[in-house]
């Protein structure tokens, strides 16, 4: 039976099967890509349809022949979208800056300074990683309210600063810098702080950048805490802003203007992602759970 097999035919059949399989694979991958991209297409499409055109389409059209930017004008004029964006930027930059300072100092202490109780404290830190945000947010809400910091940037920023995971990530990174460098610096009489700034921070730049970007993304998308702590529009972040727009802005019917606001909110992060694609994906896959 073996001898009667026509080897050439088997080979051909196999290659044909392989081609079918490949086409099927690309088809599926393409389908999911479409599913991911379609909402983005739809939001851009809707945002450039004119108000009257949109409302006359009982059955929605998949394209538009007369795109307009009027909706973007409306989005900035009729609701304080600019304010939301500014607030979010302030919030993201401040939170990230404070977080970086605190995390770098703590990671340095864990990685390089030797003092009694260090390991115990570190284990304590790690176990805090498991505490869900939902559990602590209630008291934080009461604390911030009692301090009279509702509707203020301090109230927004302070409880959002800590991320134990980033301290952990940085500590791991700092520890990879060889001890001999530290000892050499000590011999040369370099102070710890100077060593931290002149050697460790420059050498850990990739990780620091990754952490910064991840924290900015987290801030940009944060919704729950800002919602609890702000009820004045002057302090709304984009997430709350968009929710406000949905419920009270424009009137429920001006969907195109709403979509314009959605596009404006989404674009900064997508740009950030496209620029730092590899860094972000590496950082997230290193165990960066959301939050």
């Amino acid at each position, binding site marked *: 039976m073996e001898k009667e097999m026509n080897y050439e035919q088997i080979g051909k059949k196999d290659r044909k099967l392989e081609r079918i399989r490949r086409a099927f694979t690309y088809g599926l991958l393409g389908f999911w890509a479409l599913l991911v991209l379609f909402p983005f297409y739809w939001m851009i499409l809707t945002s450039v349809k004119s108000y009257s055109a949109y409302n006359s389409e009982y059955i929605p059209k998949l394209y538009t022949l007369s795109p307009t930017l009027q909706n973007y004008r409306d989005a900035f004029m009729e609701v304080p979208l600019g304010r939301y964006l500014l607030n979010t930027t302030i919030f993201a930059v401040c939170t990230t800056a404070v977080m970086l300072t605190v995390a770098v100092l703590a990671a340095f202490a864990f990685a390089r300074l030797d003092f009694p109780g260090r390991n115990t404290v570190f284990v304590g830190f790690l176990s805090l990683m498991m505490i869900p945000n939902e559990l602590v947010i209630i008291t934080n809400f009461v604390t911030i309210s009692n301090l009279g910091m509702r509707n203020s940037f301090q109230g927004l920023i302070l409880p959002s600063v800590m991320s134990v995971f980033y301290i952990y990530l940085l500590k791991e990174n700092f520890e990879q810098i060889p001890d001999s460098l530290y000892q050499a610096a000590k011999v040369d009489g370099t102070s710890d702080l100077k060593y931290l700034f002149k050697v460790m921070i420059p050498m850990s730049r990739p990780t620091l950048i990754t952490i910064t970007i991840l924290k900015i993304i987290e801030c940009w998308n944060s919704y729950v805490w800002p919602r609890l702590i702000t009820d004045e529009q002057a302090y709304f972040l984009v997430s709350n802003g968009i929710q406000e727009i949905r419920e009270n802005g424009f009137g429920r019917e001006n969907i195109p203007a709403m979509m314009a606001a959605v596009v404006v*909110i989404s674009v900064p992060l997508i740009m950030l992602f496209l620029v730092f694609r590899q860094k972000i994906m590496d950082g997230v896959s290193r165990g960066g759970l959301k939050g």
Partner: protein
Amino acid sequence: MKSKKNHSLKGWLYLLPALLFLAAFLVYPLIDVFIYSFEEGYHSASQTYFGVGTYNYSYVLHDPYFLQAVKNTFLLVIITVPLSTGIALFLSVCLHSIKRLRSVFQTIYFLPYVTNTLAVGLVFMLLFQKTAYTDGFINLIIHWFGGPSVDFIEGPYWAKLFVLCFYTIWVVMPFKILILTSALASVNDDYYKAARVDGTSGLRTFMRITLPMIWPMVFYLIVTGFIGAFKAYSDVVALFGTDLNAAEMNTIVGYVYDMLYGDSGGYPSYASAAAVILFVIVLTITCANLLAGRRQADD
């Protein structure tokens, strides 16, 4: 020469900011939430309470809104965790098997991770919604296949649940695909070559070689998927608005926030009790998961 005491003081000094933040916003609240949950009749304005007991828990557990939220949350978890993990696994395997366009697909698939959940949720609402003015895009597709229009946002329960699950899967997919593709890439290519030389079928290669080798990562995704899905909230708000009780779409976390703040708020004790109940549920399920995982590893 610095004294030893001085040296250790410096270590604590560097740690001080982190410790302060953690103590104020993580450790203290953690203890406090349990205390709150046992303080009966707490009044937020006067900050007084009547007594200590389990009344808050019993109130929450008898609240129909809470039970609705528990039902919604469990349905969401049971539907989305297996589905999203399965689909992510399937797509990752497909992605791993191709060379051309791979990084393009990877980039596209990751996009939902970097978008604002609230903002894109609005687009999903738009796609699924049926109003007096428009039928919505999804209904357009349903019509192509000859089905009747459905309002997925304010219509029947199953339709709302469907949109919620769909959107949740859409949102969690990037993380899972990313983790699984890097897990797949870490499997040495020689295993596949060996399997090919031995004439192993594709399915058998997957079940007997690929899956066991990346199982730790799949398991990690299942565990974190459970935890994440139990905490569902902002995607629900994105789709159905802030008045989730009216929409019958509240989740446990949503219930906590509603109790705390907003039109129905002002009851931090009830919120604390609900949060503790959620914590216990998540903890139990995570432990069960880990136990099951360990048993499997022993086999």
